């Protein structure tokens, strides 16, 4: 069992509240996943720059490293977001690779990704989620089944630029799909089944598919139980397996599209009493995209 929360804003006036809404949703979902939590939030982009989300050991001096590399940085606990001029990307990747205690866990023009072991409310607090703004965000509360309770095994997983995926369920053919994807030069950091689903979508997107096309292809390739919520730079998608074992509730208003593993997670969103509430159908791709 796991909990998923997602919020995609149509009304830009709500952007400053995005983090606080997601933090509330994740806290409600603690009893679906108390062992770890994480979230990806799509914040402001900066033309000509990309963001690296880095994770390091406790008390790592990210500010010092950022100063050495002449980039700006925002630190939250053991994570930091570096904003890097595109022209310096290769050089900075090399500098980070020279420090094996650091991991780059997400890159892209807008994505920032944070995850850790602990109760969802504590994880949200450690990474100051309530103070973060953006256009859409996806979060997850984990009750581990397929791999160990570690920071690496927490969701979301990001395997391509500005892409992330969270998962409730378990995949049965992930080893086979992982081997296939590794031959396509998709890189994996863990033995986790969910990372394979993320990698599969990244591969499809890299080959030119749109998010909805990549999700449709996942229906044919991935075997097992899943409710996925995925994010891209401008989009937000939902897919449930054909058997639909794992719960899902969605709410749509003029201002937002929200996803919750249960209605409880949506109950404090603004205007929820007038929202169109529905259960996403099995094996049907749901997809929202926002113009840049």
């Amino acid at each position, binding site marked *: 069992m796991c909990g998923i929360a997602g919020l995609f804003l149509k009304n830009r006036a709500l952007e400053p509240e995005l983090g606080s809404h997601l933090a509330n949703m994740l806290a409600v979902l603690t009893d679906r996943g108390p062992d770890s939590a994480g979230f990806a939030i799509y914040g402001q982009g900066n033309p000509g720059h990309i963001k690296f989300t880095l994770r390091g050991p406790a008390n790592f001096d990210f500010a010092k490293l950022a100063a050495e590399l002449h980039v700006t940085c925002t630190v939250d606990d053991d994570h930091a977001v570096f904003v890097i001029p595109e022209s310096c990307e290769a050089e900075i990747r090399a500098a980070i690779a020279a420090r094996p205690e650091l991991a780059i866990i997400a890159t892209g023009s807008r994505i920032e990704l944070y995850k850790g072991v602990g109760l969802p409310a504590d994880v949200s607090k450690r990474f100051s989620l309530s103070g973060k703004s953006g256009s859409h965000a996806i979060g997850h509360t984990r009750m581990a089944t397929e791999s160990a309770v570690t920071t690496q095994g927490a969701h979301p997983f990001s395997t391509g630029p500005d892409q992330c995926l969270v998962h409730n369920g378990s995949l049965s053919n992930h080893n086979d799909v992982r081997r296939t994807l590794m031959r396509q030069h998709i890189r994996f950091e863990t033995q986790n089944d969910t990372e394979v689903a993320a990698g599969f979508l990244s591969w499809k997107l890299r080959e030119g598919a749109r998010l909805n096309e990549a999700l449709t292809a996942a229906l044919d390739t991935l075997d097992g139980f899943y409710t996925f919520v995925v994010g891209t730079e401008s989009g937000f998608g939902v897919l449930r397996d*054909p*058997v*639909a074992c794992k*719960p899902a*509730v969605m709410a749509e208003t003029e201002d937002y599209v929200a996803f919750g593993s*249960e*209605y*409880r*997670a*949506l*109950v404090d969103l603004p205007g929820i009493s007038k929202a169109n*509430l*529905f*259960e996403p*159908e*099995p094996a049907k791709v749901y997809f929202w995209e926002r113009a840049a």
Partner: protein
Amino acid sequence: MKTALKHAEPDAISFDLASAELRTLNEALQALDAKTNETAWNILNPRGAHALAVGITAPVNVTIDGHVGYYCAGMNDGGKITITGNAGPGVAENMMSGFVHVLGDASQAAGATAHGGLLVIEGNASARCGISMKGVDIVVKGSVGHMSAFMAQSGNLVILGDAGEALGDSLYEARLFVQGEVTSLGADCEEKPMTEEDKAILAILLKKSGSDAPVQNFKRYGSARTLYHFHVDNAGAY
């Protein structure tokens, strides 16, 4: 305290879950017996809570104002429970008797394993509605999802809308009535002629659930009884 709920009784006892514990409410409802004078209850601010109003054994009216989570009205034995919003998975699971009325939609496994009583869903029910039902009557005014009435043993499932894939898979002896389209029938489920007895049962259930859909619009499905005992020729159907 009086409330102005449309579906509530005027002198009902009001219980606000915004300020009181769910467990306190369930204990109070479960403590009621057939002689109680506290026969009408209004539950406010359910906020999707799980296991609301479960295990009631007295003939009391409970109105829940809003959306509920998992297993609302589970094990109901004689209560009349109205949910004004949507219900989460397993509403009225294992009901023994009474009446559960969902005014919105129901999620998966509505009425699962229920032995008796009547479950009416005004909206749609998603997958596995009536799974393993054992005598309950279920009326869904909208459509139902896949694998509804899976391994249903007895009782009646009436669907005014459409049924999803594999309706009545591995069915025992429940009657299934569908007014709309059936995407596909499950293993060992077949259309059967509508007998006079079937028509009478359907007419009563439509009346009880406040529907004016004509009996002649429905098709009746039931078990072909070929999978009751293992036979090697049927191995592919299990």
